[in-house]
């Protein structure tokens, strides 16, 4: 990775051609903070908007606003219902790329009642952009968004203080907001907060550093997105390989072949590694790591590979292959933070299907420990249910032992979903805090 002192226009170092990485980020802001405009600006300035799309937006801008100004926000409007109401109601995904990185934006709606959408978008994000209107400063919504980002373990947060043009690009205003936010963030579990003053409408500090804010010495938003260091965000220490599918080609192809297919959820796996298969606790060794393109010397997250084992052990979907140096204890008692996504509340004794990595079991809610007041971050220990869009801590008992890690140690093995078995809906998103066997 290039150091932070690299410059966008500086000459490229004579390094070997680097690969283009994937960065997923979520955007959040209250209505009218300028989220759509910002995304439109990023797509437009990175030349992802093609002329037929532009033409459509131009027409729509005229229809809606009655003037010839291009309304970048219209680029990102999706479904008909949303176009009619002029608001965003569901997570939409957008794409753009620069030579350094390809970006996936989870564009999540900012309204309070759509917390579940932000949680959805945030679950896979490497980074979150929280928009703040420079005129209003840090408001309750900004705090909610920051809280959800931290709860979902997003490692990097960018506070984009938008509409700087409306406060005369004033440094003191920006500093005050940055300070307010950092005061609040100190109470959250976030390690990397970057604040950037921007004008999405005019493009200041979005792609290029702004001439109007010479007092600002940090990077432009896009420069930050291109350079923020994400390679270490994965857990590369504890080997975790949840088995998805067993490959047995059968007698006509290769009667002896038995491979365990899955996506590496943690650690670096190599042939010869001593491993243990959980929850059955069988020890063996990695014989080979296969892929369609031939054998591999190692596999790491998020690679999808096929593992063969030396001994004839009994392994099936839902089992997790772990390195012997870091073996989690399979557990039937979980304490977890849950974001509730259904109209019918979560209560003690509620029963659900639970899916964790590739294993599905049943879970019963033993107790609701507390509900978090998202505005004050206070824990309401008297709460005995979680309603739609509530976030709280619960204690669950499962029908089978699950191989999990705490979410702050591994997002892939520490997360789960709860499914209502009557409606088949996904009703809860869970993050393991602790587990006991």
């Amino acid at each position, binding site marked *: *990775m290039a150091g932070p002192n690299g410059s966008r226009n500086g000459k490229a170092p004579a390094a070997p051609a680097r*690969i*283009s*990485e*994937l960065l997923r980020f979520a955007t959040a802001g209250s209505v009218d903070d300028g989220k759509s405009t910002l995304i439109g600006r990023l797509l437009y300035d990175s030349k992802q908007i*093609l*002329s*037929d*799309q532009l033409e459509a937006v131009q027409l729509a801008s005229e229809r809606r606003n009655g003037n010839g100004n291009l309304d970048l926000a219209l680029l990102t*409007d*999706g*479904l*008909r*219902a949303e*176009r009619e109401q002029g608001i965003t*109601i*569901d*997570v*939409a*995904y*957008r*794409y753009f*790329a620069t030579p350094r990185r*390809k970006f*996936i934006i989870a564009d999540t709606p900012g309204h309070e009642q759509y917390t579940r*959408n932000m*949680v*959805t978008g945030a*679950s*896979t994000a490497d980074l979150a952009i929280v928009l703040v209107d420079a005129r209003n400063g840090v408001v309750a919504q900004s705090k909610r968004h920051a809280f959800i980002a931290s709860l979902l373990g997003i490692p990097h947060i960018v506070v984009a203080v938008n509409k700087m043009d409306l406060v005369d690009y004033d440094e003191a205003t920006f500093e005050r907001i940055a300070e307010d936010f950092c005061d609040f963030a100190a109470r959250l579990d976030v390690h990397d907060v970057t604040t950037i003053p921007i004008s999405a409408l005019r493009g200041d500090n979005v792609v290029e550093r702004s001439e109007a804010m010479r007092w600002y010495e940090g990077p432009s938003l896009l420069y930050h997105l291109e350079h923020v260091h994400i*390679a270490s965000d*994965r857990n*590369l220490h504890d080997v975790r390989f949840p088995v*998805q*599918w067993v*490959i047995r*080609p059968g007698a006509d*192809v290769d009667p002896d072949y038995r491979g365990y*297919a*899955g*996506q590496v959820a943690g650690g*670096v796996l190599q042939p010869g590694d001593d491993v243990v298969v959980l929850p059955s606790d069988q020890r063996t060794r990695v014989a080979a790591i296969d*892929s*369609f393109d031939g054998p591999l010397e190692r596999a*790491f997250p*998020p*690679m*999808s590979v096929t593992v063969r084992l030396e001994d004839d052990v009994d392994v099936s*979907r839902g089992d997790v292959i772990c390195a012997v140096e870091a073996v989690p204890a399979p557990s039937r008692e979980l304490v977890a933070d849950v974001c509730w*996504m259904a109209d019918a509340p979560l209560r003690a004794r509620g029963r659900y299907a639970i*899916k*964790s990595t*590739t294993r599905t079991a049943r879970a019963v809610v033993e107790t609701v420990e507390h509900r978090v007041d998202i505005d004050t971050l206070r824990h309401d220990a008297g709460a005995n249910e979680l309603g739609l869009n509530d976030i709280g801590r619960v204690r669950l008992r499962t029908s089978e032992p699950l191989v999990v890690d705490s979410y702050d140690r591994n997002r*892939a093995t520490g*997360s789960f*979903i709860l*499914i209502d078995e009557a409606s*088949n*809906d*996904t009703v809860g998103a869970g993050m393991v805090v602790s587990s006991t066997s």
Partner: protein
Amino acid sequence: MNAATYELSHLRALEAEAIHVMREVAAELERPVLLFSGGKDSIVLLRLAEKAFRPGRFPFPVMHVDTGHNFPEVLEFRDRRMAELGERLIVASVQESIDSGRAVEELGPRASRNRLQTVTLLDAIEEHGFDAAFGGARRDEERARAKERIFSFRDDFGQWNPKAQRPELWNLYNGRIRRGEHVRVFPISNWTELDVWQYIAEEGLEVPPIYFAHDRDVFQRDGMLYAVSPFVELIAGEEPFSTSVRYRTVGDMSCTGAVESVAGTLEAVVAEIAATDLTERGETRADDRVTEAAMEDRKREGYF
């Protein structure tokens, strides 16, 4: 440990995600099918299925919804590729749906069988009892798709309800359905057109020759170039001429437009896509030009 040593390129990260999706479907649903059009996106799906399941066989058949108005080059390619893979191909025929009265042929010079495919597709899904169908749709194609889940539910009538989508968290997909419902699964949701071409180039995948520049008799309609074929009636004033074209998408001959191009190699095509000024659908698909919400409306009815 130096984390930078363990970097994956964006294409390989997208590939890993897609393989994971395919294996989840194979494991959690009973009768999946992979929809194959012969186009570049479904060619990528076939390669991803090889990556997910070899040296085993695909745990599902491949199905082509045949409009009867295909480019002959594409059919020839389809049969060759399927023979190479040694996997089972099911052909669901729009012509048969018309002959049996399930679907009614549109008339006139602008007639297309595009919409009729939905009938044939849903009938085939029901007939074979499929509960999951892989498709090659991408979210960058169109605004309604940008919001569609990777696991996208269809009710008993094959309809998509954009307001009642299940939240999709982490890589934990919920594939539970009731009898009669099915799920459309889009493993390359997060790929862009350029990603697809770069992947085809990196993997050295064969694509039908119509993706490369070739001389063809075409005529101009609504600002697009269409192939002269027995499936399209010319309107007075439309004058066929021959020019060098290539296709960006593969669909029904009657509604898929060609673009003028001299890009004769994969590298030239990738360069052209990287530099293009028009979206894939805007440039080549008459079906999406009808209204601002054309795709959304067709999807609600059960289209791909």
